[in-house]
């Protein structure tokens, strides 16, 4: 069953098609939610909530653009709503530098290729902007609209997030030249 057949099956509320769609996309979507909320239990709850919306609002998917992209936007919205409710998503307008409690050791720096652990160490504002800009591919203007901040704040949060991440991981982990 290809993706279009799965989508058609889900439109007809065919349970088997819905389960296949779930099996196919759930791991990726939990990964996405984990990048935003940082813990497995909340990420799975958000993935289920997002999947429920995907399956009940599948008629709203026009067929233009990738289905996965449409699904990802729904998941990102779920995560942002969750963070807003938790009042953790509020981004400080002041670009204060957050000093980590403990500098990672050389060994930790090498081991921390796991992006979840790295992103989890970022303040929420940095993490949101970095995720939305670098991984989801949103523009600063869109991020500003979504998070209710200025474009300049979005840009500066990104610069600070990159700076923090560079400080946490050894350049050899990501540098293609080395």
């Amino acid at each position, binding site marked *: 069953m290809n993706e279009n057949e799965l989508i058609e099956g889900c439109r007809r509320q065919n349970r088997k098609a819905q389960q296949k769609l779930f099996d196919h996309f759930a*791991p990726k979507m*939990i990964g*996405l939610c984990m990048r935003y909320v940082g813990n497995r239990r909340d990420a799975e709850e958000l993935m289920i909530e997002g999947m*429920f919306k995907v399956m009940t609002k599948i008629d709203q998917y026009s067929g233009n653009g990738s289905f996965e992209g449409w699904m990802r936007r729904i998941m990102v919205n779920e995560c942002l709503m969750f963070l807003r409710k938790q009042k953790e998503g509020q981004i400080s307008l002041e670009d204060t530098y957050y000093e980590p409690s403990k500098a990672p050791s050389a060994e930790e720096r090498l081991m921390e*290729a796991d992006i979840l652990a790295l992103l989890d160490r970022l303040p929420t504002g940095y993490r949101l902007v*970095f995720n939305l800009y670098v991984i989801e591919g949103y523009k600063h203007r869109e991020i500003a609209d979504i998070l209710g901040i200025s474009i300049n704040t979005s840009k500066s949060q990104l610069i600070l997030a*990159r700076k923090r991440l560079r400080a946490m991981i050894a*350049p050899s982990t990501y540098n293609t*030249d080395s």
Partner: protein
Amino acid sequence: MNSEDKDLDRHFQQEAEQLDIPPSPAAWPKLERRLQRRSSRDSRRTVFRPLTWAAAAVALLVIAVSVFTLLPRPASILGGQSIELEFVHPERSLVMEKRLAEAYSWYQISEPDRKR
């Protein structure tokens, strides 16, 4: 954006692409139960919605008919006088015409006398 930033971004994009976390075994049954509840609610709606509309239409019709029949007529508003009273009976009309004719002829006869 310098090359170091580009490399960092690329690294995170690649890692994020490969980030697959299998859901717990309870995840699908949970979603399935929600979908089941939703579809049974939807099916109840599809059955009951036409019935609700039909019931509402019948109720409106009954109200309209009862308002129409129970509404006071204009005659009863005018202190119990019926509209029929204002209708001149054909016989009465003939009597009136006859009287008018008599009065006119009397007028014609009496006119020369009055001039005199």
